[in-house]
């Protein structure tokens, strides 16, 4: 089965979602990510969803759950690069991802994580 790669950079983990998300992939990512946060003692997680064109309620919830899990494991989460259409969809679905930090692109997302860690 496909897996979404998780990259480590310093004490941050970077997840770049480049393929269409389906439910099994999302659950696998959640497992992998929580395991990696514990293993690498990561302090920050950056999820890049700029390649994601379609988001349904399940994926939306999964993003917000993943962020909540990361917070429980003491890692800041930033979601970056959301497409306008995805943002509108999530708002219409009532998922405003409260508790998740957002940024426009990876660069700003990393800046946000660095700033938080200081």
């Amino acid at each position, binding site marked *: 089965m496909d897996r979404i790669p998780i990259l480590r950079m310093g004490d941050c983990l970077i997840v770049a979602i480049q393929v269409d998300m389906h439910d099994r992939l999302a659950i696998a990512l959640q497992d992998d990510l929580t395991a990696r946060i514990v293993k690498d003692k990561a302090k920050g997680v950056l999820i890049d969803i700029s390649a994601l064109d379609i988001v349904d309620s399940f994926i939306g919830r999964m993003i917000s759950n993943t962020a909540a899990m990361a917070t429980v494991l003491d890692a800041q989460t930033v*979601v*970056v690069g*959301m497409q*306008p259409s*995805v*943002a*509108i969809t*999530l*708002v*219409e679905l009532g998922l*405003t*991802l409260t508790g998740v930090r*957002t*940024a*426009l*692109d990876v660069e*700003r*997302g990393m800046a946000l994580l660095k700033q938080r860690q200081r």
Partner: protein
Amino acid sequence: MNASKTAALVEVLTRHRDTLLTDWLNQHLSIALRRGLTTEAEMNDQFRNFLSIFSETLAKADTLDASRPEWEPVRAFLADMSAHRARQGFTPVETATFVFSLKQPLYACLREEFSTRREELAEVNWSVNLLFDALGLFTTEVFQRSREAIISRQQEELLELSTPVVQLWEGILALPLIGTLDSARTQVVMESLLQKIVETGAAISIIDITGVPTVDTLVAQHLLKTVAAARLMGADCIISGIRPQIAQTIVHLGVDLTNVITKSTLADAFIVALQKSGSSISARVAS
């Protein structure tokens, strides 16, 4: 019966063509020219074309029922004419009169033609009457449809005009909202704001509601949606231009704006935005 009627009509039309044209034009000119919307030459052209298309169709068709496919050329001509007149600013009555004012001159000709055959005259008159009523109604319908098309196009234009997103500073956008916010407009506003955020990479956007006349729960909800969507894109929102009455309404309605920065004027909001982005503006001190 029908065939003989149409044949007789065609004959009358060709024989009295010029008289008909002049009479018809005289009838109609007084109405149409009065308001300076068209010229005599243009009207003359229109009448001549209509009459020739009308007689051609009449000669070919063996029915006087205007809704039949045989009458398509006449309907197409009338549709063109009505749409044109709708754009020129004619009233529906003036447009329909184009067809109806042909009735009287035609009756005069028919009466002359059938002077000895009373029965036939009545019959032909009735059929012609029905035909022209149908054509006149068709004209009015097309006229109405063209007007509606014009109105909906104007509405769209208004929608686009009323949602400009302007860049105030590096990384600061402003969205001055004018007019009532409904669902359709909120959608357009949201889309253009988010698009602009992507284009300019802005981190802060100011939504100015000075021009929004009233804020009810629905409008507030739409505003909060826009703010939430912008936040998902990684941009902070400031709502400015809240007038005293609107502040009162918001509190009375129990709308929760605690998670959003609100300022009373755009200038205040701009200063906050500058501080957040680490810039500042200062007045030059005279030496």
